[in-house]
């Protein structure tokens, strides 16, 4: 052992003698010195984050209304602080020729965030009639002019929340103030401090260690093995009483010292800065040292083998670059095709529609199974060429839901949920109409869920209340302009009317209906509310409980049982609205649930997780239902058709199971297209056996975020939005296997070769 430790020590010494190493260490020192002055301070929530403006359209209308009126008002104070071009833009009401669309509402966040920094916003007369919270009064009493920047931001946010409680949610996300020395280079950020630090460090370490460090390591260490195997050097070594294989192995391990020094220095430096400067001792960060050592080990295995065979450092570098290129091409092709198939073909929702099976894919396209042709065909179209929405860029489509009485599908476009627009329209597609989509009545602002109750009423759930469709869903809502304001007027009196208590919930809101009794369960990250319809169909609050953690969740209810899935992967079972949790499970670790479906009789709940696995809960047995479900790891949606379970897997295949036996009742399997064939039979097998050095940082991401999925696009908090599945352990095993094979070949070659 002494001899092999000497070889490793010699490699360490060789690395230390490298000028490149010292250059990198000096650069790392400079980088750490540049990072150290960064200050990250958490402050009470001020900036507007995603989903914090519930009703953008209503808010803009109200500001305009107040600005036009004579008396002092918050709107009068806000108006001059908005950008002139934005004021002009919103002065004109939206029309068919010039719709406001998302751009205006997107910009509203930024405009209001700009207003937050103004000392001219507060005026005692303007806020005279507005009840202010104590925190705001204390700040006002200190004098607006004397407030620090972060205090001013907080005060202005409180003023806006107080002035427009129906349009703006209470600030939930603390702001993070980033400083550099005594400068404030950027506006406060509306992300959790921990996430900001973790993600920044992750990206930083990935670049400086995973990319720069590994590349430099490959260059510097490329000569170690060729020099060792040079005639004159190898003879001397092999004349010593050591094992040839262990000589190669020790040299290989010794070469890894280079990256260990680099990564160790930079990561420990960052860890100290994060702890001492930002108060976050992220011990998991230190794990990134062996992780990046592992990445380097993959490349260096190839370099070492090439060095042993060809004894030429240039060949080593070329072979390593070729490996990197091959891994990159295979990895990107797999990820790209996977994402493409997920977006264009993966079924995100299954809707049993009488005798038909309807599904919605990630792009919001609605598909119907054609049993004769054994394929999916698009329905719910207006007859004009559709413009599929970019997945992740908009919120999930609300619905479609099937209205059995009228044999039609109902949905609300996704933009409604995202931007808080006073809805475009409820969209309706009737079977008799060939499932052609038509715009119906205006949906309530901020519609988060759409249901058809057991009594065949259509409900829209928003953070502000429950609304029931009164009249014909297909009746088109007209808009008329009164004193410059747009007011919806439903034709023939059809409209959504309040059907429950006024609520003050936050977005994103998850809602579910009990298919048996019509009970509603709502969850908004902090409160779980159960409402029950009275004899007149009006909903009354039956139970409300605060849920700790402020984590987004998905709720489902059936037969009086409520299942709540949280972003941290916990599934909590309540066997009754008022009861305490009877069970709490974490069947998929930290992977968050994406949807929870309940059987009509309330006996089973099916949870689809973002890691594309399905878990079934047996309510009576209070345990996991051991039903054999195929396609685990590729499951994207589930639904109950009566007491049969429909499961979508492998992008667009659906299987119908009988519960609890798991007997397959029916399969809906379209033939594989060219892309799916290439994916399943060529790319995926190659990808499986190929090393995946580029995906090792998944482990760092996993360790930092404690989740094996990552959000896509803007809907970070909405669990219904698709997420990227992070394969944490797969790359570890395939890379380990690769290293074992390549290093084993190096050992074998060294053992057999006549030098």
């Amino acid at each position, binding site marked *: 052992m*002494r*001899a092999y*430790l*000497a*070889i490793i020590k*010699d490699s360490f*010494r*060789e690395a230390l*003698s490298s000028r490149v190493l010292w250059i990198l260490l000096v650069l790392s020192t400079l980088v750490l010195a540049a990072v150290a002055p960064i200050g990250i301070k958490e402050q009470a929530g001020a900036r507007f984050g995603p989903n914090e403006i519930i009703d953008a359209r209503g808010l803009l209308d109200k500001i305009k209304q107040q600005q036009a009126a004579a008396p002092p008002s918050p709107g009068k104070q806000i108006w001059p602080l908005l950008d002139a071009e934005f004021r002009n833009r919103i002065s004109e009401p939206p029309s068919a020729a010039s719709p406001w669309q998302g751009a205006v509402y997107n910009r509203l966040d930024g405009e209001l965030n700009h207003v937050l920094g103004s000392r001219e916003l507060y005026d005692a007369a303007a806020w005279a009639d507005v009840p202010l919270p104590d925190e705001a009064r204390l700040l006002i009493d200190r004098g607006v002019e004397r407030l620090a920047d972060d205090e001013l931001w907080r005060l202005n946010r409180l003023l806006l929340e107080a002035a427009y409680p129906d349009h703006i949610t209470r600030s939930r996300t603390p702001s993070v103030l980033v400083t550099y020395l005594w400068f404030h280079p950027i506006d406060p950020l509306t992300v959790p401090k921990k996430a900001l630090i973790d993600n920044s460090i992750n990206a930083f370490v990935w670049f400086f260690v995973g990319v720069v460090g590994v590349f430099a390591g490959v260059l510097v260490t490329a000569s170690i093995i060729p*020099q*060792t195997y*040079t*005639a*004159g*050097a*190898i*003879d*001397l*070594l*092999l*004349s*010593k*009483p*050591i*094992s040839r294989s262990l000589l190669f192995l020790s040299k290989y391990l010794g070469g890894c010292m280079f990256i260990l020094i680099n990564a160790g220095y930079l990561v420990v430096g960052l860890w100290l800065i994060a702890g001492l400067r930002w108060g976050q001792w992220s011990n998991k960060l230190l794990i990134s040292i062996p992780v990046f050592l592992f990445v380097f080990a993959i490349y260096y295995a190839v370099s070492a083998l090439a060095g042993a065979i060809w004894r030429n450092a240039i060949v080593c570098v070329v072979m390593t670059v070729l490996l990197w290129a091959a891994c990159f091409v295979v990895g990107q092709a797999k990820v790209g095709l996977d994402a493409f198939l997920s977006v264009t073909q993966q079924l995100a929702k299954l809707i049993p529609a009488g005798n038909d099976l309807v599904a919605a894919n990630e792009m919001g396209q609605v598909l119907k199974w054609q049993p004769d042709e054994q394929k999916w065909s698009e329905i719910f179209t207006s007859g004009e060429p559709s413009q599929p929405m970019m997945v992740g860029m908009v919120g999930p489509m609300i619905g479609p839901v099937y209205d059995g009485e009228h044999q039609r599908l109902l949905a609300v476009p996704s933009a409604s949920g995202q931007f808080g627009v006073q809805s475009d329209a409820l969209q309706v597609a009737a079977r008799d109409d060939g499932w052609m989509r038509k715009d119906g009545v205006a949906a309530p602002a901020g519609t988060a869920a759409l249901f058809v109750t057991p009594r065949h009423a259509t409900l829209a759930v928003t953070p502000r209340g429950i609304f029931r469709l009164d009249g014909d869903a297909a009746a088109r809502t007209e808009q008329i302009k009164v004193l410059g304001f747009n007011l919806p007027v439903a034709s023939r009196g059809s409209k959504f009317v309040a059907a429950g208590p006024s609520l003050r919930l936050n977005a994103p809101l998850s809602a579910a209906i009990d298919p048996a009794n019509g009970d509603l369960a709502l969850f908004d990250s902090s409160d779980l509310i159960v409402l029950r319809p009275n004899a007149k169909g009006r909903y009354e609050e039956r139970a409300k409980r605060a849920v700790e953690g402020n984590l987004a969740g998905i709720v489902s209810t059936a037969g009086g049982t409520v299942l709540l899935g949280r972003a941290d992967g916990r599934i909590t079972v309540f066997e009754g609205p008022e009861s305490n949790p009877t069970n709490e499970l974490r069947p998929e670790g930290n992977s968050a649930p994406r949807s929870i479906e309940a059987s009509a009789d309330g006996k089973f709940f099916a949870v689809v997780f973002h890691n594309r696995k399905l878990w079934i809960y047996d309510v009576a047995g209070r345990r996991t239902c051991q039903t054999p479900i195929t396609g685990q790891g590729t499951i994207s949606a589930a639904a109950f058709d009566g007491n049969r379970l429909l499961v979508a897997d492998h992008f667009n295949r659906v299987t119908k199971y009988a519960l609890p036996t798991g007997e397959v009742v029916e399969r809906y399997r379209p033939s594989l297209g060219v892309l799916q064939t290439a994916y399943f039979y060529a790319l995926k097998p190659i990808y499986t056996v190929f090393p995946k050095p580029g995906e090792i940082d998944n482990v760092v991401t996993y360790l930092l975020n404690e989740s094996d999925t990552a959000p896509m696009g803007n809907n970070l908090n909405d669990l219904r939005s698709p997420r990227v599945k992070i394969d944490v352990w797969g790359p570890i095993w395939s890379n380990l296997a690769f290293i074992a094979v390549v290093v084993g070949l190096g050992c074998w070659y060294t053992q057999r070769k*006549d*030098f």
Partner: protein
Amino acid sequence: MNSEPVIDVQDLRKTYKSGLFVRRRVEALRGVSLSVGRGEIFGLLGPNGAGKTTLIKVLLGIVRRSAGGASLMGRPAGERAGRQRVGYLPEGHRISPHHTGNTALEYYGSLSGLAVGEIKRRRPALLELVGLADWGQARVTQYSKGMLQRLGLAQALLHDPDLLMLDEPTDGVDPVGRSEMRTLLKRLKGEGKTIFINSHLLQEIELVCDRVAILVQGRVERIGRVQELTVQSAIDVTWVLSGDESDIRTVLALDPATPLLVPAPNQVQVSTAMDDQAGIDRAVDALRGRGVSIVALSRARRTLEEAFLETVRRNEVGTLVT
């Protein structure tokens, strides 16, 4: 000398194969047999490509033998335990440029199984012994070729081996250094060490080796003590004589056409090949009987180089004939 040979080689063969599709075979060793006894300094001679380095590499296990047997200190050649007791200085050895003299010895000593403390204890004396006492801290990139050779010798001696295998040990070493190395080798021999030297410098071999083998085209053509290799079948005798030329020609049986040198007035010089000492004695008696004065008489002895060249040329002729 102990009866058990330190190196024992019996009909050793090594064939190198190369080429992926068209296999080429090169026979480097074609049945080599030799043995080296304990405390002996053994020299291996041979032209380039004769298989000298291959033989050493087979003995050390760096190259695998194709057939035959070889053992080091009673263990099969190449066995790790056998190498434990061997110090090897390869030809054109290369010490990594990041080393100093001290760290190089620490590294190679550790590979030989020595503890670092033990290496540090032995190192100063060893560097002193090879003439690098003041160079331990210097990077090997600052060393001359001769200094590198001395450092190589130091690493070979560091673990106090029983057998030293030196491949061209005086390569690049100046005459003073060579003389020092000869002294060192004799001292090591005095300590009971066995030394196996592979060298092109025949004079060096002749001066230090007890026995020598001449390897030509993978075969041992001659092996024996240096004196044995330099013994000739006929003795060259140079005469300086004063007397009648016809008597001289008659007694020495010279061809009439053979010219006689005249080194001084009334003297002639002539070289003859005599069968043995008795022949020389008879010729002296006959010359004196005819009144010829013998001014000078000298016997010429063949050098090892001449014996080596004769062996190599004879083999080349043999190869051409076959």
